[in-house]
């Protein structure tokens, strides 16, 4: 009986999870080679050539990867610091409410908040102007739609960091890091050694797959870079949508080329990640 149910479960997973994804992928591949598409007229490698030679994809990929890496690194760093430094405080009601609140805010809203707060006509700019720090609101530093993606990174961190705090606190408890630290201390380790050689390695080894998954997730983010990014370079999803919606219908396939390359890279990364099927992942899922 149980077997039957698990078969049905598998069937649903394939129907809902695999078939649409595979169909969309095949469709994108066909579109990128001009096989489907109302204005396309048959197989061609033209779109692949122009996409690969223009260099825009690689620029966008590098840009997205850099933003995702910086955001994840800062988020994880901060979250580790908070979780280790304020373990007790974070278990209190009010503080935990404040720190987890951003988890409930959707990306679009978070991006909108950032814009309202940090744009040149935003809250902080006006405040600085009122306080006489600026002569003109326009002198406020470039924090949204800016060259260094500060707005995007800031928004990512506010969204991602609370999640990691939550995760690290759980791991801290489940892996009994406190007990291990005490043990290390009694064996003569300095506080510094306890942090760097006991707590951090234990916690990171248990969570690194999730860290990498978050990196992949941010790599493909759409709304936040759409609202807070600049026109060039653009993050991958923004680039794909721009190409697909472009005015020149004959070039829509280039958007599908980018989507296909991106899907392949991310799928390969995911397969590599999970083929190792580290026990740590299972441990976390079990918890």
């Amino acid at each position: 009986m149980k077997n039957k149910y698990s078969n049905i479960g598998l069937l649903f997973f394939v129907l809902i999870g695999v078939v649409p994804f595979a169909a969309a992928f095949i469709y994108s591949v066909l579109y990128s080679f001009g096989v489907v598409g109302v204005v396309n007229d048959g197989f061609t490698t033209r779109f692949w050539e122009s996409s690969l030679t223009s260099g825009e994809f690689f620029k966008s990929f590098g840009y997205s990867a850099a933003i995702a890496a910086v955001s994840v690194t800062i988020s994880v760093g901060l979250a580790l610091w908070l979780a280790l430094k304020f373990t007790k405080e974070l278990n209190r009601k009010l503080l935990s409410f404040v720190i987890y609140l951003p988890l409930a805010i959707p990306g679009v809203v978070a991006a909108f908040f950032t814009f309202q707060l940090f744009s040149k006509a935003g809250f902080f700019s006006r405040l600085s102007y009122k306080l006489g720090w600026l002569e003109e609101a326009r002198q406020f530093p470039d924090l949204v739609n800016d060259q260094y993606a500060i707005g995007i990174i800031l928004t990512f961190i506010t969204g991602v960091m609370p999640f990691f705090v939550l995760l690290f606190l759980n791991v801290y408890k489940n892996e009994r890091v406190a007990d291990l630290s005490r043990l290390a201390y009694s064996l003569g380790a300095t506080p510094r050694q306890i942090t760097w050689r006991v707590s951090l390695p234990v916690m990171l080894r248990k969570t690194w797959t999730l860290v990498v998954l978050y990196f992949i997730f941010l790599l493909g983010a759409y709304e936040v870079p759409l609202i807070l990014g600049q026109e060039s370079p653009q993050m991958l999803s923004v680039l794909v949508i721009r190409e697909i919606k472009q005015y020149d219908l004959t070039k829509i396939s280039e958007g599908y080329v980018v989507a296909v390359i991106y899907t392949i890279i991310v799928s390969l990364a995911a397969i590599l990640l999970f083929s190792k099927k580290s026990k740590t992942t299972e441990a976390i899922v079990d918890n």
Partner: protein
Amino acid sequence: MVHSQCLKTFIVNRIFYAFALLVGLVSCNSTPIESEINLSEAPWDTITQEASGTTVNFMMWQGNPSLNDYINNYVIPRVKELHNIDLEITGGQGPEVVQLVMGEKQAGVEKGQVDIVWINGETFFQLRKIDGLWGPFVKKLPSSKYINFDNPFISIDFQQPVNYMEAPWGMGQYALVYDSAQVSNPPRNLNQLEAYLKENPGTFTISNDFSGMTLLKSFLAEIGGSPTSLDGEFDEEKYNRLSEQLWDYINRNKRYFWKGGSTFPKEHTKVDQMFATGELHLVYGFSEGGIEDKIRDGLFPKTTRAYAWDNGTILNSNYLGIPYNSSNKAGAMTVINFLMSPEAQFEKLTRNGREARTVLDLNLLPEEWRMKFENAPKPQYSPDLEKLAKKAIKEPAPEYMIRLYDDFRTEVIEK
């Protein structure tokens, strides 16, 4: 038994259809289901009767509160009252319309989701390219007798003959906008703009969208030497020559643009917002600059003014079309006829003052309506229409827009 057999077939069909839609491999042989009546030959009364009691889906850009108010609080109740039609509005503009029609065409959807689309020249060009529009139908509508199809600003859309495939709905001229409290002498040509930029760095930009490209077309026409320099079919050699000078002009002044020209706003709405907050001092917009309703709503200061470029700004119409696979063409025709009627056009003109022009030709209207239109309250803040109209230029061929979009990105944004 029969029932369950039917259900099974139905489910199998559904699954197959869903799959086919996903993979998109169904053939493109998509002749829509013909209505029971022949719409091109049936008398108008039969068409409105057929439309009675049906639902019509209208896909339109919903970014303007005044227009939304006009649609929701006037048009929807009125078509229900007059024709017993439930008009439903879906949000979506240019690219979404094209994406939807293209998607349905590829999947062979015979009964499309949308019956009316609000489009302008660029979308018209794209939809014609994929045979996405149904028609010609405009001559069939009784309201079309009030429209002067000899007016090139109505019968020619982006240098393409409209051929009654889309019905004119609104008309407006592009204008530049400034705050007279901040800028005393706004630039009227490229030389003056260069001087203005150096004096007021960071207060001007070009949005990377339809509105911004329309401004670039005005600039291109000025470089070409006359208001008519871009008329006629697309001329590659001319485009290359003129655009090279345009990019050179922009790039050498780029550092005086908003954010030092390091980026450009994605959309025109952002430009409007930045004008409202005082970040930008010189902006632009369609429909006489689009300032009337924004001043009335308190978004723009009362000192806002709009004006035309010396070499002219673009005057164009926007239109209503029926997708090739609309499942309620009779309903769509009835609603479009109403939207073009003197009653609805008059209301559109006077309700919020968003628009200053009508697509109707006053000389063709019955006396009573002509008087009403002539005595309609004039816009308070918009520039004098006749003065502005002297500087009206036609939309150049769509290829200019395609190339400007591409090249603005590669020659300016990415440099």
